[in-house]
């Protein structure tokens, strides 16, 4: 295939190898070292995309991440990547790309009719219309607007590639691998400092690879390659190419995205597609260079209009001539290099247009190129249908003439790439001389060098980079062989460009923000309507809000607004850049945390055994708990739950309670501390006894509950709810370390140390007796209800045995070291077989605790007090405890507050549902009549009907009253009777048996 624009020699592409790729289904070839953009240009493809609003034809404007136009969909299917910048998409064999935002095809885009309506489609037009009739907005207008929105399409299936996140530490992070960055990294690296140098490109060198310069006695690109090779050889230097430093955070933390595999058709086996780096750097050098900006003129978005620096990049680095006959349009002396490079590449330079009144510095160059030199004039517009065919040049009076060309190389000056200096709110400072924003207050530890700091010359860039690198190394105690500045020839003239910010005469749309289709007229309209601060300008016109984040447009738009309003640029505002510097794939920021591995999974010691039993599991926070243990022939969870409950109530069952938080509390002040965190007294608890305790927050609301056992005079064993284990531990440490630092008490989480099994049911003592080693007495006399003892089981395994009951039956909790947890539950089941034991899960447990009226998560919902829960009398009046004082506030002590009571359906066959609200019988179900809500419901096998717990206004005084349980979201409306919350064995005879 012919590549009409590929130069015969030069650049960093490997002409000996060919890479096949396709664009919009058509096949092309490029070379290793190409980007998609350079390969397309080499193939003579200029039309690459359509613009957002007007669907105007667009080509390649830049050669980097600032590209606003050449966005494509890369790859296909689940790997489809919308809005990918062709200018940085590294070419690989088999690459597939498609243009976006066009229908039916790129060349023939019917939506380009939008251009016809464009006189109405100005900035903010939608705020002024689509309001009548109101119903049309949802049905007609908005769907229409939404369909037109967006550029590319997201993939529809789960991303098949993996991502990795990693953390790196260094003495010095060098951001950017151009001249300044290389100098900084060499200076610090040679001294022995730990250095990371990151560059977004796939080769180091930055503009050293894009310009025809000499460094020392070699070509600039060769010098860069040598420097890169040396850095790679230094043991404490990490070179990250294809890596963009995307964000700066407090504390010297930087985010960086490494595109590990984007230059391959697919990641290699086990390799991530991308890796997100958190870099913790003691210091950093920002050597991010500068971004060239365009000059607005009519049709300045036509394919064939390209930034002059990019033109040089395509010629010098990629060996591609982006045109045959060029016009160079500039406001600075950089144009000389552009003209020279074009000529060296065999292109004709038809004209050099210098917007400045004096173009003496360009005279020789233009003459040598045989180009017409025009100064004090501007390009009024480009002409041509889908690509540039020429330009119209105007003087101040509006007289014009045409110059045919197929390339307009534009240079409006350079904007230092200071984006990262803004991330910690450092406001940039406008520099009139350089006509650019320079870094203002930089993030702590960051030094900005080279053109990023407004020092556009190569010699200065080397010098400032080397100095910053050496200083960073020295600050961390490294010194030694530094970086000797190479000799470079000085630049011709100066590269500061200051306008014109709008064309002298209006001919067609002159774009400021290419991607969002914001024109000079839009900025003028914004000013006219009072949207004059930069914040209003951005929001009203969407200037700078596109995927390029306004890298080429923000300064132009701001300067234009300043000119229109007659204010200075600083008075008009400052464009603050927010992270990330360039857009980052969401997958990369998520890393490996997706699907089942989104969050850790905690497994109790019986998990493997429960899997063997065919248990169905439920997520409880991070824990997996067995919900129920279905048996063959059981139709559903309900049938299983009923069997499990009935087995416990009549025989015996076993449940893994290991997920409860367990805290060992040691120390002479352990009892004192417990008295302060629980509402009830613990100092009086005897050794060998357990007690239920309720904790409040300081605001008087219930926080957590559980049992605490005194194992020794100075040793307690606390259990917490599964959900609050971590929070309670922090709360205890807070009480000890901050509230009462004098207390000598220590906490150790032993949640994972003990496998703890509830053995519950009338035959539980028989099962326990079969397990404990001879010599231990588990009789009711030796181990009464709420008793606890340490003993051994199954031939010498040390264990703790508690006479606790959540189910309301005679019950024990047996704790053994977790390594025996699997064997223990097998032994319990085996020992229980003669008594008809069955394992039961969280569902059956929940039913039994509701039958007993025990509060759990749904009742301890962060808004209920001890009194609401019916535990008002438990709250000690003899001591201070956390929450005591504020629990007495009138709003919390109000007797009309909803209080915990039980409910049963009047129609005993009716089902109850948690979340229903209570309304008095006969009252309308309105907010005014809302009297509380159901918190927990269950079918009670013991009662033969559904039962519920809930909070009802003045509940305790309404026993026997019938109210409605109103549940409109589930079409429920059941009459229920207010009853005691204890549905089984209210005297507690069973658990004391």
């Amino acid at each position: 295939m012919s590549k009409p624009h590929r130069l015969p020699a030069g650049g960093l592409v490997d002409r000996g190898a060919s890479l096949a790729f396709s664009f919009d289904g058509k096949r092309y070839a490029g070379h290793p070292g190409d980007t998609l953009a350079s390969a397309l240009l080499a193939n003579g493809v200029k039309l690459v995309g359509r613009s957002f609003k007007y669907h105007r034809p667009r080509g390649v404007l830049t050669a980097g991440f600032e590209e606003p136009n050449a966005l494509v969909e890369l790859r296909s299917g689940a790997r489809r990547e919308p809005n990918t910048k062709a200018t940085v998409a590294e070419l690989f064999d088999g690459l597939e790309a498609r243009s976006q935002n066009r229908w039916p095809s790129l060349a023939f885009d019917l939506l380009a009719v939008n251009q016809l309506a464009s006189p109405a489609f100005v900035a903010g037009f939608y705020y002024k219309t689509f309001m009548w009739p109101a119903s049309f907005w949802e049905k007609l207008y908005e769907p229409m607007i939404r369909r037109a929105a967006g550029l590319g399409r997201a993939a529809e299936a789960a991303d098949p590639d993996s991502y990795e996140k990693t953390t790196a530490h260094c003495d010095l992070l060098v951001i950017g691998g151009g001249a300044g960055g290389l100098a900084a990294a060499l200076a610090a690296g040679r001294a022995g400092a730990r250095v990371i140098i990151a560059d977004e490109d796939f080769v180091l060198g930055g503009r050293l690879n894009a310009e025809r310069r000499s460094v020392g006695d070699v070509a600039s690109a060769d010098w860069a390659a040598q420097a890169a090779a040396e850095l790679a050889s230094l043991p404490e230097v990490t070179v990250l190419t294809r890596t963009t430093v995307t964000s700066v955070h407090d504390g010297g933390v930087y985010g960086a995205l490494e595109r590990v595999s984007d230059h391959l058709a697919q990641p290699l086996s086990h390799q991530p597609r991308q890796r997100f780096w958190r870099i913790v750097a003691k210091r950093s050098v920002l050597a991010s260079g500068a971004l060239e900006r365009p000059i607005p003129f009519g049709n300045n978005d036509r394919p064939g209009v390209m930034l002059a620096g990019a033109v040089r990049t395509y010629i010098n680095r990629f060996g591609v001539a982006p045109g045959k006959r060029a016009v160079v349009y500039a406001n600075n002396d950089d144009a000389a290099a552009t003209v020279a490079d074009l000529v060296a590449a065999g292109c004709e330079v038809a004209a050099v247009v210098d917007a400045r009144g004096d173009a003496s510095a360009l005279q020789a160059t233009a003459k040598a190129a045989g180009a017409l030199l025009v100064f004090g004039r501007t390009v009024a517009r480009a002409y041509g249908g889908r690509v540039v065919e020429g330009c119209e040049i105007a003087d101040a009076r509006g007289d014009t003439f045409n110059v045919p060309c197929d390339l307009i190389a534009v240079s409006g000056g350079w904007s230092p790439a200071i984006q990262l200096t803004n991330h910690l709110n450092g406001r940039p400072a406008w520099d009139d001389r350089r006509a650019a924003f320079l870094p203002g207050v930089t993030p702590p530890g960051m030094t900005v060098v080279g053109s990023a700091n407004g020092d556009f010359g190569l010699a200065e860039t080397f010098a400032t980079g080397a100095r910053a690198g050496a200083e960073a190394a020295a600050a961390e105690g490294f010194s030694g062989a530094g970086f000797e500045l190479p000799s470079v020839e000085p630049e011709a003239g100066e590269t500061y460009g200051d306008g014109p910010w709008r064309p002298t005469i209006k001919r067609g749309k002159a774009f400021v923000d290419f991607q969002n289709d914001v024109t000079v007229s839009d900025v003028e309209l914004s000013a006219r309507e009072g949207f004059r601060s930069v914040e209003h300008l951005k929001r009203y016109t969407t200037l700078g809000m596109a995927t390029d984040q306004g890298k080429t447009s923000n300064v132009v738009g701001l300067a234009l607004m300043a000119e229109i309003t007659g204010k200075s640029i600083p008075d008009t505002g400052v464009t603050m850049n927010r992270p990330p510097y360039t857009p980052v794939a969401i997958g990369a920021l998520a890393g490996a945390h997706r699907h089942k591995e989104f969050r850790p999974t905690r497994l109790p010691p019986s998990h493997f055994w429960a899997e063997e039993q065919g248990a169905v599991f439920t997520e409880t926070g991070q824990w997996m708990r067995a919900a129920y243990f279905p048996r063959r022939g059981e139709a559903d969870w309900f049938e299983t739950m009923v069997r499990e409950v009935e087995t416990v109530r009549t025989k015996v069952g076993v449940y893994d309670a290991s997920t409860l938080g367990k805290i060992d509390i040691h120390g002479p002040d352990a009892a004192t501390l417990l008295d302060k965190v629980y509402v009830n007294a613990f100092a009086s608890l005897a050794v060998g006894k357990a007690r239920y305790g309720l904790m409040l927050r300081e605001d008087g609301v219930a926080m957590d509950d559980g049992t605490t056992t005194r194992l020794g005079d100075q040793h307690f064993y606390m259990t917490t709810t599964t959900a609050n284990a971590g929070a309670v531990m922090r709360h205890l440490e807070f009480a000890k370390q901050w509230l009462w630092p004098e207390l000598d008490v220590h906490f150790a989480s032993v949640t994972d140390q003990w496998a703890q099994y509830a053995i519950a049911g009338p035959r539980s003592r028989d099962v326990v007796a079969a397990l404990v080693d001879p010599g231990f007495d588990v009789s009711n006399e030796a181990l009464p209800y709420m008793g606890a003892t340490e003993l051994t089981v199954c031939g010498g395994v040390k264990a703790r045995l508690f006479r606790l009951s959540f189910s309301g039956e005679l019950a024990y909790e047996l704790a053994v070291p977790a390594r025996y947890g699997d064997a223990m539950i097998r032994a319990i089941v085996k020992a229980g077989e003669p008594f008809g034991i069955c394992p039961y899960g969280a569902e059956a447990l929940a039913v039994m605790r509701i039958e007993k009226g025990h509060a759990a998560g749904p009742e301890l919902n962060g808004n209920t007090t001890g009194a609401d829960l019916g535990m008002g009398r438990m709250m000690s009046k003899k001591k201070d405890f956390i929450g005591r004082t504020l629990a007495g506030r009138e709003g919390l002590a109000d007797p009309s507050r909803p209080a915990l009571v039980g409910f049963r359906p009047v129609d005993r066959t009716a089902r109850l549902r948690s979340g229903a609200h209570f309304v008095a019988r006969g009252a309308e179900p309105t907010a005014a009549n809302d009297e509380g809500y159901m918190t927990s419901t269950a079918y009670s096998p013991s009662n033969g009907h559904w039962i519920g717990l809930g909070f009802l206004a003045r509940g305790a005084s309404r026993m026997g009253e019938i109210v409605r349980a109103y549940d409109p979201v589930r079409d429920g409306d059941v009459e229920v009777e207010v009853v005691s919350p204890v549905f089984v064995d209210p005297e507690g005879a069973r658990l004391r048996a």
Partner: protein
Amino acid sequence: MRIACPHCGTRGLDEFAYLGDATVVRPDPSAENAETAFVEYVYLRDNPAGRHRELWSHALGCQSWLVVTRDVRTHAIESVENARDVATARDQGAGQ
């Protein structure tokens, strides 16, 4: 943000749990105006835009509670102290 735990060294924010203002002191529950004092202690905050003394727990580290003095406009950390030491000094001061 990175916090220099006096015990563990400098660690990332993700290891720490925040509580809030460290200048408020739990009132004497036996005082006459205890309820009002507790309301202020629990709910009212200076919330300054500047230097802020605040409690953090090194929750995914050594479990120590820390008093961090930080400028909440810049996130610059002035000091990190062991909360128990600060509390001990506070209580000794109150006892004098």
